[in-house]
């Protein structure tokens, strides 16, 4: 079936199998491999992307469900001048990553979290990121990164 999706601000038209998962579509048809598959069961959140601004687990929905929608992946998050998005900057500075496999999903889930709640408490952040697993960091630096990004946003 034919779908048209705006991916990172660029409109894309593809003919996909109806059963194609959104994450497969992004990684294979769009060649955007920043979005990861960690578990295949929507448990780990490594595949998190934004669909019309809301975070979704792209391994748990069909590409067809994104038809007509607008998807932001980790590759589309940086500012147009190439500088890092404040959330990317915060993960970078706060050592919010080690192996980095969870990072794309974690960053996008955090961006979505701040859109809904610009001034989260530490607990809000932990609750908001509960659906994203990290096996390396023990989460504390990730939580710090999200709080730092929120503070930076507030300061602007």
């Amino acid at each position, binding site marked *: 079936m034919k779908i048209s999706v705006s991916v990172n601000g660029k409109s894309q038209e593809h003919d996909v199998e109806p059963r194609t998962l959104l994450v497969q579509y992004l990684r294979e048809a769009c060649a955007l491999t920043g979005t990861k598959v960690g578990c295949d069961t929507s448990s780990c959140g490594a595949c998190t992307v934004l669909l019309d601004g809301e975070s979704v687990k792209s391994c748990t929905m069909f590409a067809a469900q994104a038809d007509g929608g607008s998807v932001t992946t980790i590759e589309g998050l940086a500012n147009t001048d190439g500088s890092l998005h404040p959330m990317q900057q915060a993960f*970078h500075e706060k*050592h919010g990553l080690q*192996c980095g*496999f969870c990072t794309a999903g974690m960053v996008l889930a955090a961006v979505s979290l701040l859109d809904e709640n610009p001034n989260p408490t530490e607990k809000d*952040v932990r609750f908001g990121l*509960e659906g994203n697993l990290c*096996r390396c960091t023990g*989460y504390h630096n990730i939580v710090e990164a999200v709080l730092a990004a929120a503070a930076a946003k507030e300061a602007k």
Partner: protein
Amino acid sequence: MSATTIRSPRVGESAIRPDAPAKVQGKFGFSNDMWIEGMLHGVTLRSPQVHARIVSVDVTRASAVPGVHAILTHADIPGADVYGLEHADQPVLANGIARYFGEPVAIVAAEHPETARRAAALIKVIYEPLDLLVDSEEAITAPPIHPEGNVFRHLTISHGNPDAIGDVIVEGSYEVGMQDQAFLGCEAGLAIPDDDGAGVELFVSTQFLHVDRDQTAKCLGLAPERVRMTVAGVGGAFGGREDISLQVHLCMLALRTKRPVKMEYRRDESFVGHVHRHPAKLEYRHHASRDGKLVKVEARIVLDGGAYASTSSAVLANACCFAAGPYVVPNARIEGFAVRTNNPPCGAMRGFGNVQACFGHEAQMDKLAVALDMDPIELRLKNALATGDRLITNQMITGAAPVEAVIRACADVPLPTDSSGELLELPGGAGRTAAGERDRIVRGVGFAVSIKNLMFSEGFDDFSTARVVVDGGVATIHCACAEVGQGFVTVAQQIASAVLDIDEVVVAPADTTVGSAGSTSASRQTMMSGGAVEGACKAIRHMRDSDAAAGRSTEGRYEFTYEHHHRPTTTLDENGQGDAHVSFAFAAHRAVVDVDVDLGLVRVIEIATAQDVGKIINPLQAVGQIEGGIAQGVGLAVMEELVIKDGRILNASFTDYLLPTALDMPTVRIGALIEEPEPGAPFGAKGIGESPCISSTAAVAAAIRAATNKPVNRIPVRPQDLAL
């Protein structure tokens, strides 16, 4: 994977990882992300049987599927048909018998992964089930399930006077379940055959590049130099990538089809595609004098190694050598078995044998404190090892051993206040479905101390190689050390910039065109590859200084390749005695838990810790390792277990294998990182990766014991262990 630079961070500074910009932008290439024009996709057909004779394998229908390029079985292995890290006994593809659930039987390459999967499903394998051997204790005497027998290693440690008896004796039996590394990026690789078909290039996520290469070459029947390997971005490791998984399979398919082949495990396959932490049964008897001095430790330790050897012998050595913990113990008698069963193969995981032993010896220390009516921390201080003391292997500790300091610094951290009582903060957290009765929530505090040997032991020729080139004010480090997330890339830059006083340092991709760096395991890369980088840089600095002293220009190109060996170790003799280990690291953990004693639910509130680190190269990364290690230690204590029934893994998914989330992770308070330099280590730095997940587990178990008065003699602790 591209080379990256930072400016002038020196040793002791919180330099930011050079790969962080790529990782936060989704531009870092993981092994799972690789793609090349014309590549085929490989899949593995695995045995659904736990133990069975393979009567026949019929690939006729599978081969006829359009798009299938190769189906290979045991008969197609070009070289050695078995591999293994310490002892080659694991079939590349099952040879007439499948010995564990998920053992590879055939491999398929096709144009599309789904085509390959469909074809694999059409391979007709007839199995004749055999009796199962799934009990580790029975395995010691049961009829062999492998021509090489069921006992991988039987190790006895006899130290001091075997007849010594203490005034006070405590006994205990303990059990540890099977933990999974659960790294987030599943196994993946890409093999590209040489045009002439005489060799192959493999890009793979691994911990141990050169030994992967050597094992793979042997199985391919090729000289090692015909197999070139490069570390592709690694999505976590924790021991689970020390053995090979898909390496030989990929190369076999690429050489057969003359096409590049990519293979990527899915999560359910990853759970059967790598080794796990050994389940353990431990029986202890501790003797002490009335005044609280340890007199003797007796233990019997049985590790279930599963179907094949992997690193079981070395894991057993750790469990036995450190069975008494970080204490002075004049007399000891330890007997250990690592055995073969039809359970999933077990091998390396962060903590490597010390985790299991620590759960046992620390439970015993608490029991002893009760029997002596002594404060458990006082008891530990009274027996703490120090430099100059001997282990139960009779080895004298010559390096730093600030055991007393880590105990005191950890114990001195103020205790946390009571929880707010909000639902989310209660035991069970977000998963709690009933408010329960608040006065049935009991707080407990537990303490544990650990010892970990750093680097490889028992006479292993352990070394790392680094080539450093300085040209035009830029230093380039070429080292085969696998960066798996631990932060070697940052540490290497910091060491080089400190030694050379140079601002721009590039770490080139890790591959087999430079000498071996050994494994990224055993807390060894900061010391071993860090030592190699330091050695190469010092040599260049010397060359540069000589040129300057002679009035020659120092603007030219300098190159030096340095091989860093740690001091030699010996094997253990028939009494388990010998200088088998290089260096040791110590840590103390104090856990605070809240337990709902009716529901059997546990919430780990806080872990306080102090750790012996030698010298902190990068504070930010050091704390990152400590927090990450504690997460895995807490996971083993209260939630992480591969549930095995009759040899089958029942929970091979992230839906059913529970990992700590951001909500489960306790507060971590670091009392102190003790910097007592380790002789022979770069800048005196000790490896820090494993200690955090050794005694944190034991401390949580102790805290649950304190809260519930239940024995808690098995980890992970399950609700039914507490509430029934």
